[in-house]
């Protein structure tokens, strides 16, 4: 059995739940462990109830576990909400300065977090960091790595040192009072190549590696940290991040920048993308390469801003009037998010069309450890982009009709005049109303999808190639589904998992072949109506046997998938 410890920090907004959770995750990652961490927070700046879960393991982890081994409850609410989630043998650390009616038991570790913080670090604000020290003691991890991480996080000045003192206070208190009761031993390992990174950060890094130099985006949870990260690096890397007046402006700005020759991207959530839809059609019509990241959250309208859902699949597949080719990529893991972002920029320029990178809050804001990305494997392919040397520039036609549908792309400012139009246009790019040219231009644009289709990676199967039951998922449910398959197979059920992360053009042939094999197939989706199931039926004619759906704004857990599937098949 792999070693796996699940920690949870709970408290209200403003208590530093996120900081403590992040430092826990970072310290274990730096010590060579695999880590997956997610946060559950409300759409408010102070108060409410937030928690941060950190799963630490000596083998790969891609999903959170619902059972908690060590609960660090910073307030009374956290005690009440989460004590029921403790695993057999799990322990709860609580603040004796605050908590009431805790009861008694060997698994309850009361620590005067606030008063220790005041006494040792000079402020009760650092009660969270005292708790952090306790957690490192209970896991036998030691405090050395945590001290480094605290100094990086809070700075080497007074704030950093006070936090180090607070952590040491908690650590020492735990050693003195709870010795002999420590549950797990997570000694640092000898491995130093693990990055701890969120999905949004992976996308930002992917965009930077792919040569994206222009971002225009309007802040919207859960996509905002992409633009924030890139803006923080803009001067250093020579890229520009613009926060315009609205999402409409954002997509039109990246279209202008891409037309001029920059690799350009926007990032938003579903409702922000709703405002961009008109611009998506413009990119399709003018054959302008853009990348739009859509980090889904529960909708319609404002929905649940800080929660997760996969409810925008059907929307993005057909968004904007008329027919034009597009690509939709939906990363399943944080590593996938990096590589599919690179791919998105290449698709966009090679096929001169809009590419949508569809993620969700779960993937966007969860942390995971991945080995450092090997940038030497990043290939930048700009397709038929013409340099300054253009033969016979006076004869250049931006939308020249070619067998592949892809026209050589010159940039404005060179010798050739580059003309394009949101109206239907001729090869030169000038507006027309001629029926024949209209037909030819439609076919030319649509033809690009034929070769794009060949570049869609075949869907991945987890588990045996053939099995009695196949679970089907897309995007961020990947981790939960893999673990559910492991559990089900461990219990003797013959189950495998088909994961789709490149959704459009839809890999119809491969999916048809795979779904012809199992006796029964079930789609598992974080939405209310089974949007992937509809897509599969539309593209292959295959009707899956059932949908396992969840649309309460919270992610799937392996245990939930296991119990839902058992209801279907047993």
């Amino acid at each position: 059995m792999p070693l796996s410890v699940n920690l949870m920090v709970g408290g209200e907004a403003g208590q530093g739940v996120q900081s403590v959770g992040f430092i826990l995750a970072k310290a274990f990652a730096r010590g060579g462990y695999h880590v997956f961490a997610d946060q559950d927070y409300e759409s408010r700046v102070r108060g409410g109830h937030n928690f941060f879960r950190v799963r630490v393991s000596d083998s790969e982890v891609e999903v959170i576990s619902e059972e908690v081994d060590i609960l660090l409850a910073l307030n009374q609410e956290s005690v009440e909400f989460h004590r029921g989630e403790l695993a057999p043998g799990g322990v709860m650390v609580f603040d004796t300065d605050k908590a009431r009616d805790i009861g008694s038991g060997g698994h309850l570790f009361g620590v005067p977090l606030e008063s220790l913080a005041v006494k040792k670090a000079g402020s009760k604000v650092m009660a969270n960091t005292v708790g952090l020290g306790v957690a490192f003691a209970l896991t036998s991890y030691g405090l050395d790595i945590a001290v480094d991480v605290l100094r990086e996080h809070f700075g080497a000045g007074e704030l950093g040192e006070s936090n180090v003192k607070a952590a040491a206070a908690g650590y020492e208190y735990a050693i003195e009072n709870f010795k002999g009761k420590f549950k797990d031993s997570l000694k640092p390992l000898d491995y130093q190549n693990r990055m701890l990174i969120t999905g949004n950060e992976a996308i930002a890094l992917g965009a930077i590696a792919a040569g994206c130099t222009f971002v225009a985006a309007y802040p919207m949870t859960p996509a905002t940290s992409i633009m924030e990260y890139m803006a923080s690096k803009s001067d250093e890397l020579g890229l520009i991040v613009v926060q315009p007046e609205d999402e409409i402006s954002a997509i039109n700005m990246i279209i202008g920048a891409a037309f001029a020759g920059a690799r350009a991207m926007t990032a938003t959530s579903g409702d922000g993308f709703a405002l961009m839809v008109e611009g998506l059609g413009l990119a399709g019509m003018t054959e302008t390469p853009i990348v739009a990241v859509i980090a889904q959250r529960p909708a319609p309208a404002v929905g649940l801003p800080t929660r997760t859902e996969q409810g925008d699949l059907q929307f993005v597949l057909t968004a904007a009037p008329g027919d034009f080719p597009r690509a939709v990529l939906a990363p399943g893991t944080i590593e996938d998010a990096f590589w599919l972002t690179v791919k998105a920029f290449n698709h966009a320029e090679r096929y001169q069309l809009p590419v949508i990178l569809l993620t969700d809050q779960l993937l966007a804001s969860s942390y995971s450890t991945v080995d450092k990305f090997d940038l030497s494997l990043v290939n930048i392919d700009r397709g038929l982009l013409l340099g300054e040397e253009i033969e016979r520039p006076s004869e250049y036609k931006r939308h020249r009709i070619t067998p592949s549908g892809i026209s050589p792309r010159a940039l404005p400012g060179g010798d050739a005049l580059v003309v394009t139009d949101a109206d239907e246009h001729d090869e030169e790019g000038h507006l027309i109303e001629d029926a024949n040219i209209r037909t030819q231009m439609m076919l030319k644009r649509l033809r690009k999808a034929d070769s794009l289709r060949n570049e869609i990676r075949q869907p991945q199967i987890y588990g045996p190639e053939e099995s009695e039951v196949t679970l089907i998922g897309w995007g961020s449910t990947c981790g939960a589904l893999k673990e559910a398959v492991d559990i089900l197979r461990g219990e003797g059920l013959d189950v495998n998992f088909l994961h789709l992360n490149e959704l459009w053009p839809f890999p119809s042939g491969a999916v048809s072949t795979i779904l012809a094999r199992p006796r029964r197939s079930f789609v598992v989706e974080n939405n209310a109506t089974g949007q992937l199931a509809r897509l599969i039926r539309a593209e292959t004619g295959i009707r899956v046997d059932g949908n396992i759906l969840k649309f309460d704004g919270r992610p799937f857990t392996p245990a939930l998938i296991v119990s839902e599937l058992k209801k279907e098949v047993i």
Partner: protein
Amino acid sequence: MVKMADYAGRKPAWCPGCGNFGILTALENALVTLQIEPSKVLMVSGIGQSGKLPHYTKGNVFNALHGRTLPVATGAKIANPELIVIAVAGDGDGYGEGANHFINTARRNSDITYLVHDNQVYGLTKGQASPTSDFGFVTKTTPQGADMPLNPIALAIAAGAGFVGRGFAGDIEHLAQLIVLGIQHRGFALIDVLQPCVSFNRKNTFAWYRERIYKLEGADYHPEDKLAAFEKAQEWGDKIPIGVIYREEKPAYEERLPVLRKGPLVQRKLDPMQAEKLLAEFL
């Protein structure tokens, strides 16, 4: 040597006598006066009869969506500040559908020259009221008469535009000179052009404008004075001023971005390894 012939484009499909012809000629005159090659110009237009203008001359062209000229122009200008970017819109396009972009582009001060063909009516869709139609103007969609008109000059000054001018499509020489000044201005320049619509606006005709307009050049008027400019912006009716109404020197958006001092984004060599130093921060 750039000549008028270099700017000869396709034959316009505008109504005979349309004010757009004067604007087209004035723009070409201005570009020739400044000796700018067509290949260095990017014209971004919207939808409406004005949106067709770039097709009838020479240059790089992005004929964009209704109301969205300015964001497209801004993205292109930031990506390649070496382009001379002219945005072309109509009054419905620029002051209705695109009003929010207008306000915020003025505020951002990107180096774009914005020509608004202001004929106070919708021409392409055949005669509905526009944001600048005179109060009470009766059309098929406004049988009770149009609402109070938007004042683009005052709005531009309030929004922070550094160059605000008004021209008249019937005075090509004056308009061309105004466009020259607009292009030379470093930052966002609005040129609202009074453009008679011979098909759908029987009120604000060439004759109607000729009786009312007067030039600010030569008059005792100082466009650097913001309060005076606001006051001048209120003049409409019996007397309508044309010329430079407000002017203020301030850094253009592109000049404020240190990143662009290293040259245009579009000339960057794309190198994946530049992300390498960022990766270490995640270890």
